């Protein structure tokens, strides 16, 4: 029998965020299936089991507890939900199970010394905010040109919406631009008043740190008050087809951040050829193939298999590894251009390298534009903000957390 490595999939395919969740988790499953179709990871098959969380914390915890010990134990967990990820935070060290929070969750978890089990891979919210500012500066012709400009942060009034504050506040003070924060309470289906305010403020950019229907509503409202969509930059959770398609023409020209580049890549072709053309794709309806959410799911899968591969490299090739060993793998990911090229994902994500202390790996992001039917790259390559600043903020915050929770940070120097 082929050795097996087990990954529980905590997905949400019904409920308010099903449109995102369904494609994303299909992407993950597609990549796992692709890996298996190619003989697994050095011959180790990946098995997985899905559990519906409805994006609901309580059900997420239940799914986690139900699946984590199945089939020889879970290797890694990825919930796609901030609430569930938070709820699992305390359970991970006890279960010795790594969790990835790709593009969401606590930004300070990038400090692996305090959060040994959490991996906010590729980029955190803070890196995203820094990259946003960096992009605006590029467009304006330099950081100093931002001085005196007005930037509106239209944010979802929730924990998520406020994630950008520390970084944006810092930049606003340092560079001297005028930051206006406007909250949109959930669900945010009606934004007429806020957009009238925005029009009055005549901002140079509007950051749309939105979620769900709020994004389409914002684009529509922007169109109504005549604010150019080209000046709106969404966060990456405000940057998928789910957000732009419903807005119809109003979305044309809209920009958003992303940590996965739009476009066609060999790995996508591979999945299409190996799975979809043979009717084995996981998406219901091929229309969503290659959509932003789908690709993000694929990337989650890539990172999972790469971490397992790295762990095998150290602990025994061709044998299943334990969750603790997978964590080691996650801490020693080296996805340079060469490796990315081998996977067929060169350019799909920024090259990244993790370590015991750095659980983020990259910190870069890309700006994409909606051309009416597709997202296309807008920024020239990957953009990263002030990495040192973000790292400093993360370390401060993590230290605070460690103090509150009586955690002694790991000494990364002593680990290999």
């Amino acid at each position: 029998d082929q050795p097996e490595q087990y990954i529980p999939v905590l997905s949400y395919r019904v409920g308010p965020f099903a449109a995102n969740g369904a494609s994303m988790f299909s992407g993950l499953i597609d990549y796992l299936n692709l890996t298996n179709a190619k003989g697994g990871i050095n011959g180790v098959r990946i098995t997985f089991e899905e559990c519906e969380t409805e994006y609901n914390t309580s059900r997420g915890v239940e799914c986690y507890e139900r699946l984590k010990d199945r089939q020889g134990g879970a290797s890694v967990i990825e919930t796609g939900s901030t609430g569930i990820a938070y709820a699992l935070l305390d359970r991970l060290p006890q279960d010795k199970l790594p969790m990835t929070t790709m593009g969401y969750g606590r930004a300070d978890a990038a400090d692996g010394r305090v959060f040994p089990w959490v991996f906010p891979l590729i980029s955190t919210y803070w890196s995203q905010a820094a990259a946003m500012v960096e992009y605006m500066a590029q467009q304006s012709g330099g950081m100093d040109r931002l001085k005196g400009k007005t930037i509106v942060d239209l944010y979802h009034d929730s924990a998520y919406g406020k994630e950008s504050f520390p970084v944006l506040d810092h930049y606003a003070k340092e560079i001297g631009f005028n930051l206006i924060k406007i909250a949109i309470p959930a669900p945010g289906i009606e934004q007429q008043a806020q957009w009238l305010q925005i029009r009055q403020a005549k901002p140079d950019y509007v950051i749309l740190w939105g979620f769900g229907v709020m994004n389409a509503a914002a684009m529509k409202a922007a169109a109504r008050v005549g604010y150019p969509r080209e000046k709106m930059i969404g966060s990456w959770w405000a940057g998928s087809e789910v957000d732009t398609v419903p807005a119809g023409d109003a979305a044309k020209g809209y920009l958003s951040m992303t940590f996965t580049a739009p476009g066609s890549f060999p790995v996508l072709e591979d999945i299409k050829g190996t799975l979809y053309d043979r009717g084995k794709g996981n998406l219901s309806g091929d229309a969503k193939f290659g959509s932003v959410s789908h690709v993000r799911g694929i990337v989650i899968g890539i990172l999972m298999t790469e971490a397992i591969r790295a762990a095998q490299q150290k602990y025994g090739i061709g044998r299943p590894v334990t969750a603790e060993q997978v964590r080691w793998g996650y801490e020693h990911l080296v996805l340079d251009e060469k490796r990315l090229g081998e996977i067929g994902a060169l350019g799909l994500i920024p090259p990244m390298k993790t370590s015991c202390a750095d659980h983020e790996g990259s910190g870069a992001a890309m700006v994409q534009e909606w051309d009416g039917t597709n997202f296309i790259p807008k920024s020239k390559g990957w953009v990263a903000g002030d990495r040192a600043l973000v790292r400093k903020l993360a370390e401060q915050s993590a230290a605070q957390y460690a103090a509150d929770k009586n955690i002694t940070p790991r000494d990364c120097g002593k680990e290999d």
Partner: protein
Amino acid sequence: MFYRLSGQFRTSYYEDNRLIGEKLERTVFIATMLVASIAIPLVASPYLLSAVLIPFLIFSLAALGLNILTGFAGQVSFGSAAFMAIGAFASFNLLLRVPAIPSLLAFLLGGMCASAIGVLFGLPSLRIRGFYLAASTLATQFFIVWCLSKVGWFTNYAASGVITVQHVAPLGFALDNHVSKYLFVLVVVTTLTVVASNLMRSNIGRSWMSIRDMDVAAEVIGINPLYAKLTAFAVSAFYCGIAGALYSYAYVSTVEPDGFSLDLSFKILFMIIIGGLGSILGSFIGAAFIVLLPIWLNVFFSAMEHFSGLKAPSGITSNVELIIFGGIIIVFLVVEPHGLARLWQRAKEKLQIWPLSH
């Protein structure tokens, strides 16, 4: 046949006022408690304890709280999650800011805070009734959650408003593993359930029910609606507050105000309606129904797929589960509109006269 009440005579009113009247039921209750407190911690898997039983008990407690207000005192509320939030955040702040405060006391005071706010938001009930009152309790729900997330002090200025609760050891009993958490929750929930039953068989319980059934007549026999309604709000909010504290300290440990959303409030309301308004047992049955049924459906469908080897298109199963869940709610209501507890009671009555049919 075995379910017979004959031969059981009560000789004093003390006896007739007992918490659980029938001998058999008493035995069953004691057996359940023994199993719950000894057998389950010994044999149950961590999964069962920490992902099923603990949330079930906590939601039962919240449902019980809401049932006191809605089922017994007749004031429908959509704000129970907000009171849970108050309980959670008040306990968090007390433990954070009051040096050396015993955690049990912090929880108690957290519940009291919820109580106090409950009284405040209960005031409109003196004038507003029915669905109007229900809809206006939404103000409570949204306002409190907004406050908690806007005022940094409540979340100890956490950047995004998320708090991670402290490790606590009530009465030296550290809540650091599934079993201890489960036992602690079990003790709290049992105690509060007994207290609720006491209230229901006392004068205050009757006052609540009379206000619910016919407020004019209640006033005419001398019941003070102000007192009755506000105590109901207070006690209910207290229960929800404690449930909130347990939710954060014995279950998820990292919470944000938005976690106590309207959805949660609705969920708790559904528990008591499907379980049975005005029934303590109903709160538990309802919580079990709403918490466990989706899990069972999920497990069932996974098993089906596993055994049949058929793979339904992704997303379909989840939607089918949802449809079945809704369908089952409707079917149960059609069978017994007064909730599962009433269904159970009717089954019991049938057993008593079995094998005769009338």
